[in-house]
């Protein structure tokens, strides 16, 4: 990045910062790491310090959970400064090898997981009760076009989410289809790993592809894809929904009937990119309340104050040095205290991090982590 005078000052409105400290005060990773986002808001005013600041390891601790932005009284987005510093590193090519490999795979394979593009639709085999998965050709008409996130397409643990979404949409008689092998990474994690250029490439490529479909809306499985398509893409011509929004609508319109009882107590963990970032709080809770037999509880820290699972912000590929307890473990401990038997999520990353934390704490027998889509699948 060419550092011109006031590069960061203008881009991130740094002079608007009043150094009140609400950002750092709410930052969930401060209990684990040295990250002090308020200091970065202050220090990055000086252009000649940017290089040095970009080399601080803690810029990679941020999970981009949006807490600092939601708490900022001046409406700033402090964490974006950290992404700006990351992008300086990425442009110089000086990033963690794990991040490098993820980014190279995004470019080469269209997904960050190092998996072949040709295998993107393998999850579509053997979907219980769904005979034909429809893949839409560009130009084809449908009500709903589904974007399956890279993680759901390739991680065997997450594939059931995509399968259940197909089952739910089938059961509700929705006119929908998938993109198929042409589907690519949304770019969200590219941007979080500091690769603005690569994000712009995905914005262009995906927009060109998606705008060819004659569909009423694009529905995503992951809140991260949802956020990128909805808020960060520049020319996407269709409305974007997270699946919880569509499913809530289907239940309300009595198109989807949830028959099977799940007699259990459930607590919903708000995914940052659905909740804090896009203020979708009610739909997931509404869906859970409509599953027969389900008792719902709330975390003490929920909705705008929800605790991050540390799966976003590129953190799936970059570890923190810290050996302090992961936030996901804290979250599981909180759920255990509430007496919840199910921690419900609506995000692939949350599912992975929280389930891992549950195993670390040895609670496999007592509790489970499940995506709302899995619960819907059980309740159909």
């Amino acid at each position: 990045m060419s550092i011109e005078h006031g590069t960061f000052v203008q881009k991130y409105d740094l002079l608007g910062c009043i150094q009140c400290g609400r950002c750092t005060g709410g930052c969930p990773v401060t209990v684990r790491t040295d990250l002090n986002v308020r200091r970065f808001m202050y220090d990055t005013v000086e252009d000649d310090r940017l290089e040095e600041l970009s080399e601080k390891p803690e810029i990679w601790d941020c999970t981009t959970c949006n807490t600092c932005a939601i708490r900022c009284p001046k409406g700033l987005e402090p964490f974006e400064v950290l992404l700006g510093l990351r992008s300086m590193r990425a442009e110089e090519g000086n990033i963690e090898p794990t991040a490098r490999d993820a980014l190279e795979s995004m470019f080469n394979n269209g997904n960050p997981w190092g998996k072949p593009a040709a295998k993107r639709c393998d999850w579509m085999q053997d979907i219980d009760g769904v005979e034909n998965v429809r893949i839409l050709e560009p130009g084809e008409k449908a009500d709903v076009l589904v974007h399956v996130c890279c993680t759901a397409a390739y991680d065997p643990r997450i594939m059931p989410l995509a399968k259940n979404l197909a089952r739910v949409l089938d059961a509700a008689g929705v006119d929908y289809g998938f993109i198929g092998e042409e589907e690519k990474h949304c770019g969200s994690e590219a941007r979080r790993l500091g690769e603005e250029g690569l994000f712009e490439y995905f914005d262009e490529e995906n927009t060109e592809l998606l705008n060819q479909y004659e569909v009423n809306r694009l529905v995503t499985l992951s809140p991260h894809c949802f956020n990128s398509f909805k808020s960060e893409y520049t020319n996407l011509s269709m409305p974007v929904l997270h699946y919880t929004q569509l499913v809530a609508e289907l239940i309300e319109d009595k198109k989807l009937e949830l028959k099977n009882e799940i007699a259990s107590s459930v607590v919903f963990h708000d995914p940052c990119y659905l909740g804090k970032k896009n203020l979708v709080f009610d739909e997931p809770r509404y869906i859970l309340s409509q599953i027969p037999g389900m008792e719902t509880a709330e975390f003490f820290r929920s909705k705008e104050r929800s605790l991050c699972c540390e799966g976003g912000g590129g953190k799936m590929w970059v570890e923190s040095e810290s050996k302090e307890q992961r936030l996901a473990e804290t979250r599981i401990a909180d759920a255990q205290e509430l007496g919840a038997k199910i921690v419900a999520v609506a995000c692939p990353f949350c599912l992975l991090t929280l389930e891992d934390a549950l195993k670390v704490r040895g609670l496999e027998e007592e509790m489970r982590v499940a995506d709302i889509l899995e619960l819907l699948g059980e309740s159909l």
Partner: protein
Amino acid sequence: MGDIFVLAEHREGELREVTLEMLTLAGQLGGNVVCVLLGSGVDDYASKVAGYSDKVIYIDDPIFANFNAMAYQAALSELIKSEKPSVTLIGNTGQGVDIIGSLAVELEVPFTTDAVAVTLEGDKPVVTRQYYGGKINGNINFKDADTYIIGVREAAIPAGEGGKSGEVAKTANPVTAEITARKFLEYVEAAVGDVDITQSTLLVSIGRGIREDKNMPMVEELAQLMGADISGSRAVVDAGWLPTDRQVGISGKTVKPKLYLALGISGAFQHVTGMKGSDLVVAINKDPDAPIFQYADYGIVDDLLKVVPALIDKLKEMKG
């Protein structure tokens, strides 16, 4: 079929096994097995390889005390020109690969590398090689020639018992000119404790199934017996049982050992992605549904705390 040359390989006072493997292969091909031994004061190797050869050409010269590609190439080139073997087999190893291509180009001899099988069609060798990381095989068709050079993969052909007793012909080095463009300096062992698991040949990798810190010595004993390094899953690193740089997976290291022995690792996608390049995967896990078995070549469904001690005993027994 005329003579089959086999280049003996030795390093730091040890005759390497690939030599016996190639001599066995040469015997199977049915030619006159001639072992070429370039060394300095290695009469004991000469008698050892004689047990697998019809003849040993032994050049005893201080220049061959340690491997030097240029010295090796010069001597081999003269020997091949004068003795005219039908085929020359060279180990496809750190030493062999350093001479095969240049020797063959110098002599204008058809050659190939990394053979996993060699057969004959008349007097002409047919070589089977692996492509795309072993996903498919391919056969090599040589241009007709009087002689061929073939690099043979280590451990592809098991060494037999020998049973020959060839004469050892001590020969003077046909090359007397000094080699100056490349000089051997020394061997440097990878520092102990300075393990880079991305470079490890053998990995014993542990997961949550290890359960407690106090089971670590057992794993260490196994690894030491096998000459393997220890790696692990994120959970084990989180627990502080292994340092951060031993973590395998999407947020750790990507490893590609010859053997990945997964002990008590369930095999989450994020872990498996970091070890997918391993040649052979063996998984021991008490959960028969653990995803790791989908990536394993061999699996044992059992408690690792029972299998590992038994395996340690067996390996000790084998090593005598």
